[in-house]
């Protein structure tokens, strides 16, 4: 009987260490989303083993890449305490703009890409500056931007997109490098990989810390020298640039339809929240947000494999997501060795602030 005790202790410490490693690997984020992702994939593999073959996985990642990139952009905005509802409309606008400007001419591809980048930055700047300088809540700012973009594109095109994308424009979203095992390594996967690396590096650096600090407590961040309005504005710009990139991939993947981009903002926000990132800011990792996006795409695939009636899918998806987020919230609330201690509230040291004294 007594022998089991040390064993239990050892088991517990191993688990603690594993959790530590996992925690460090995923930047201390909630493990729920990763567990869910694994479960969904296991079910898919059991139902359809051929999905585990490399070409099928590549097709999955190719489809998922735009949403993951959108989730990265949305993460920047959410973690600093804001929301960006304009990304879906921006994706649609960018694809329609690209089709109208390129109009099938290969030579216009690169200039139009720059126009799209500039337009993305402009939209992000407007979102950011109105939110930070005019102090309009980002929900309203970006809701307004969503409608403005939607309406402006309708007005400009008369309700239906015109023009055509060039073959070169479609390559990033559609093409890839032909390879033996995977059949084709999609360009979108290469782009996605670059975005993932850049996002992780960015969030590890001082910019990332400032971004999280701003979302966690605006005043503390301000008192410790961060220019909050600049940080937040830059987050909006990053989000819009990511949306533009997602637009390039989505337009490339499926071409121009009138519906492109519709509803993507909520899918992206759902992905980020599912990744354990707290709406209101200050908590959550970019890797978990990306895992959230992959999980949502995997759920779509799972429903398809199960031949679930389309009509019931949104309901099932909603239940799974609420359950996952609620479970993660419960984990977080429970006191324990791995609960993140909230950063010191500003009241602790007001005397040190020169502005107050």
């Amino acid at each position, binding site marked *: 009987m007594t022998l089991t005790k040390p064993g239990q202790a050892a088991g517990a410490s191993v688990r603690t260490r594993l959790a530590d490693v996992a925690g460090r690997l995923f930047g201390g984020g909630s493990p729920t989303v990763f567990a869910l992702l694994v479960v969904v994939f296991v079910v898919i593999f059991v139902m359809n083993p051929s999905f585990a073959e490399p070409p099928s996985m590549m097709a999955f990642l190719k*489809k998922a890449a735009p949403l993951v990139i959108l989730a990265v952009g949305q993460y920047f905005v959410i973690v600093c305490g804001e929301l960006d509802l304009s990304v879906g409309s921006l994706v649609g606008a960018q694809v329609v703009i690209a089709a109208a400007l390129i109009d099938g001419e290969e030579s216009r591809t690169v200039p139009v890409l720059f126009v799209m980048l500039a337009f993305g930055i402009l939209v992000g700047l407007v979102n950011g500056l109105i939110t930070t300088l005019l102090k309009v809540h980002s929900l309203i700012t970006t809701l307004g931007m969503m409608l403005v973009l939607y309406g402006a594109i309708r007005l400009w095109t008369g309700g239906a997109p015109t023009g055509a994308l060039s073959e070169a424009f479609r390559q990033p979203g559609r093409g890839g490098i032909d390879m033996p095992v995977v059949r084709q390594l999609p360009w979108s996967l290469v782009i996605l990989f670059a975005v993932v690396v850049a996002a992780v590096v960015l969030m590890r650096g001082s910019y990332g810390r400032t971004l999280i600090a701003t979302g966690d407590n605006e005043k503390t961040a301000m008192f410790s020298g961060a220019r909050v309005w600049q940080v937040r504005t830059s987050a909006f710009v990053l989000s819009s640039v990511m949306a533009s990139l997602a637009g390039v991939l989505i337009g490339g993947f499926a071409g121009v339809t009138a*519906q492109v981009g519709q509803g993507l903002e909520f899918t992206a926000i759902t992905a980020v929240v599912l990744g354990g990132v*707290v709406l209101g800011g200050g908590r959550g990792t970019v890797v978990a947000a990306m895992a959230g996006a992959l999980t949502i795409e995997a759920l779509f695939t799972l429903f398809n*494999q199960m031949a679930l009636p389309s009509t019931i899918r949104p309901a099932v998806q909603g239940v799974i*997501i*609420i359950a996952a*987020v*609620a479970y993660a919230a419960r984990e977080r*609330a429970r006191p324990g060795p791995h609960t993140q201690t909230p950063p010191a509230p500003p009241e602790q040291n007001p005397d040190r602030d020169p502005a107050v004294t």
Partner: protein
Amino acid sequence: MRKTRVLLAAAATAALTLAACTTDEPTETAPEDDAPAEEGQEEEPEDSDDGDDPADDGESADEGDGEWFVRADYERQLEQRDIEPEGPADQPWLQAIDPEWVDTAEHAQDENRTLCFSNASVSNPWRVTGWITMQQQVDVYTDSGEIDDFRVSDAADDDNQQISDIQAFIDSGDCGALIVSPSTTATLTPAVEAACDSGIPVIVFDRGVNTDCMVTFIHPIGGYAYGADGAEFLAENLEPGSSVLALRILPGVDVLEHRWAAAQQIFADSDLEILGNEFTDGDGAQIKDIVTQYLQRGDVDGIWMDAGDGAVAAVEAFEDTGNDYPVMMGEDELSFMRKWEETGMTAIAPVYSNFQWRTPIEAAVNIWNGEEVPAEWVLPQEPITDADRGDFLERNDEMPSLHYAKFGGEDLPGYPEAWQDR
């Protein structure tokens, strides 16, 4: 801590609700709002004789989704495909199938030639194309003095908005005739009846309403014929035992359900295996993803679609996974027609006649001139096949890809710029 959790839960719920709403949003994604939901109702007594079908037909009807299937309508639409329409062959928008002419002398007048139009929306390329054609037709008659003024309200797919739009037209007392393209059937019926009661001639086109108080109801043959055109083509061109994937826009819209109901009838009598029917919202990315997943699981020999939106994305899924082209049902939308010619695949483009947008204007002028119009103006609806594909592509060479080949506006003065610079 608790506050954060409450906030989080609330925000997550809000986000999800909104996400769910956007996924489900029906009207805006509907590609074409076509359809003569009510056309059969007045004729039921005569048609019921045809109900004595052979036994096997009766069985296949049971296999279909009964909620959306009216056998009499289905059979009449299939018959109408073979009836030679009356009217000039080179002006299909003036043709009518089995017309029952009504006298309009009571509405003949010259004093008030203000034409009013209550439009459901211009929320998809099919409606945009038709709307341009209609405006061009109006211009012709404004120049010739047959129409003095053209007033339009757009309800943006909102029933309540359209009801008040129609009421506003009635109250203004300015309209010499009223054209209505209803947003939905049942909800708009009282508004159309109110317009009839006000004494002005009413013209309804595209989707129907549950009344026959209007002077004329204009529509192409209908959804059953559309769905059957594609399904019959697949059944003829595929080996027995081949597998077909059905791609649909969204459930619960009568006009789209009729297309699918007709296809189910045809497929039930064939030896084709239906792999599944999937809802796509008409979104290219979703279509491509779904088709790719079916191809990962096994062969897909044919694709049936309830509307051509995103047909090209479906074809690309076959290209990108290295599979042979399927036997394909698309639509007369140019992006698909061009892909069809480029690849040379076996395909058909059913048509939901876009030229019907010209007819209400012609009808209004006829009515004011006291000329007879058909009570139910059934326009021809003929699919584009391999044989006339080249001809239609040549005619629409300069047109954008989300344009519809059978838009029927080539002889209008604004052609082709008006449709190019939309």
